[in-house]
């Protein structure tokens, strides 16, 4: 059964140095508050996993939390580059970042295999691309082929993802720790079910979950920690609770472009915060000074 704890406790108990951590949320419900808490607790040597390591992982990479990244698209959506990610890849700052790179279809299927308890997934994908020849984090080819035992057809195989920890943000949980999310639900269900441990931050904890069209419910017994984090997906959004803060994404471009400016942002907006959710409220706009 999920324990309802503070965000700081959830991160302290679930996320350890050296872990592989998947924070998912496909442009919607991105667990930004949890990401900042991981930075604040100064986790190191993480293997970060995420289909779209956008601004949330730019912050973690720039803060020196990550040594490795498994991903399929690393940009600032609607704005441009992730400058901390690029600085790590192009110049090894603040430290080298080893990459394992996939397509979205490959990553999604890797989570499905992990959630399903099978060692790999099959898909029609990657054929003829440069991604086919790239090594995984273990130095071995990350994308392989398999022959269908029924038809003899050759298909692409990718290994299951089974992160140590999955972190998601959802709209609601009830007091028993059942977690409900709706709207664009991305790959969060698969991420939680593929992981050894999981954290769900939520907009609110309610007495009873009301049915919502298209909602997913993750039962309490597949989630380890639930933490209330209202506005915890800011600057992304939580359908029904908050709107995307487009200005933050634009402001992030300038903050992240410059190492000194990024360091000031870290000092003032992450390490300097008194409460774990200061500055995380939706609609506040901007990324700070």
């Amino acid at each position, binding site marked *: 059964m999920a324990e309802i704890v503070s965000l700081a406790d959830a991160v302290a108990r679930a996320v350890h140095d050296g872990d592989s951590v998947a924070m998912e949320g496909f442009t919607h419900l991105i667990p930004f508050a949890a990401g900042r808490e991981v930075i604040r607790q100064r986790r190191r040597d993480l293997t970060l996993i995420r289909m779209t390591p956008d601004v949330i992982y730019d912050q973690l990479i720039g803060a020196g939390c990550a040594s490795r990244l498994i991903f*399929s698209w690393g940009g600032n959506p609607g704005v441009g580059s992730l400058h901390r990610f690029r600085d790590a890849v192009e110049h090894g700052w603040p430290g080298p970042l080893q990459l394992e*790179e996939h397509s979205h279809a490959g990553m*999604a299927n890797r989570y499905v295999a992990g959630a399903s308890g099978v060692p790999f997934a099959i898909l029609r994908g990657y054929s003829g691309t440069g*991604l086919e020849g790239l090594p995984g984090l273990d130095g071995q080819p990350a994308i392989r082929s398999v022959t269908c035992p029924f038809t003899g057809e050759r298909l692409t195989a990718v290994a299951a993802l089974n992160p140590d920890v999955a972190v998601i943000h959802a709209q609601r949980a009830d007091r028993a720790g059942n977690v409900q999310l709706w709207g664009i639900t991305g790959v969060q269900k*698969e991420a939680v079910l593929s992981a050894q441990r999981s954290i769900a931050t939520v907009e609110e904890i309610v007495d009873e979950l009301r049915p919502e069209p*298209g909602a997913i419910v993750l039962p309490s017994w597949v989630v380890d920690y639930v933490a209330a984090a209202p506005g915890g997906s800011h600057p992304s959004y939580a359908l029904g609770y908050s709107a995307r803060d487009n200005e933050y994404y634009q402001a992030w471009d300038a903050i992240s472009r410059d190492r000194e400016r990024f360091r000031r942002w870290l000092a003032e907006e992450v390490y300097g915060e008194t409460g774990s959710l200061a500055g995380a409220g939706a609609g506040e706009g901007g990324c700070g000074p």
Partner: protein
Amino acid sequence: MNATGAQAPATKDPAAFTADEMMTACAARALHDGMTCFVGIGLPSAAANLARATHAPNLVLIYESGTIGAKPGRLPLSIGDGILAETADAVVSVPEIFNYWLQPGRIGVGFLGAAQIDKFGNINTTIVGSGYAEPAVRLPGAGGAPEIAASCREVIVVVRQSRRSFVDRVDFVTSVGFGDGAGARERLGLAGAGPRKVITDLGILEPDPVTCELTMTGLYPGVTVADVRAKTGWELAVSDSLKVLGPPTAAELTALRDLHGRAEEGAAAR
């Protein structure tokens, strides 16, 4: 052309238009009513939404966030903009959109952008430079594009043309167009037909029916073949039946500016 560049023209002449507006109108015209279209963000999304707002009201817009049949009244701010989910016929998970909808070849046209594209329509969005491990520029990566390029029944690419973006060979093949030429898609087992049109800010290129090499088939008003060659990193072939394409209509310009205007209002209201 009355004006060039990405910015809105300084003149108040309502018939004046930018190269980007011409490109977006041309890309929209390549989509037909009732088509199913897997849409990338940025230029492709603007064009697909323009088509829906003008000649193709029944165009089915599908975004990789899992929104099927989205009907946004303004340009979405990202592929996961809430307006896509709120207006969609169906919202499915990311594994489902790739496995059930894209992979079996259900979707008519894949609409993609590119950082680099080569003469066989191969797309690079991964790295610029000679080596993957030590890139000169690290680009965002693949996203959904490799499988969109492989599995949609055909592909349209929208990209601004320059010597940097139009190269003889891409530094990295993120998404396959025609590989190393005729027959490559069949050898690789790619189900879709590949790029049908590459629409730039100068004109339209289409694959040669025999060699699959991208060939200039249409120019925008006021653009010359020499202009295009100066911005192409290979010996560009030009079609014998090269056309000059009509400028954006007043209806197209109004609809496109409304879509952009409402996107800005939406962002400013937050």
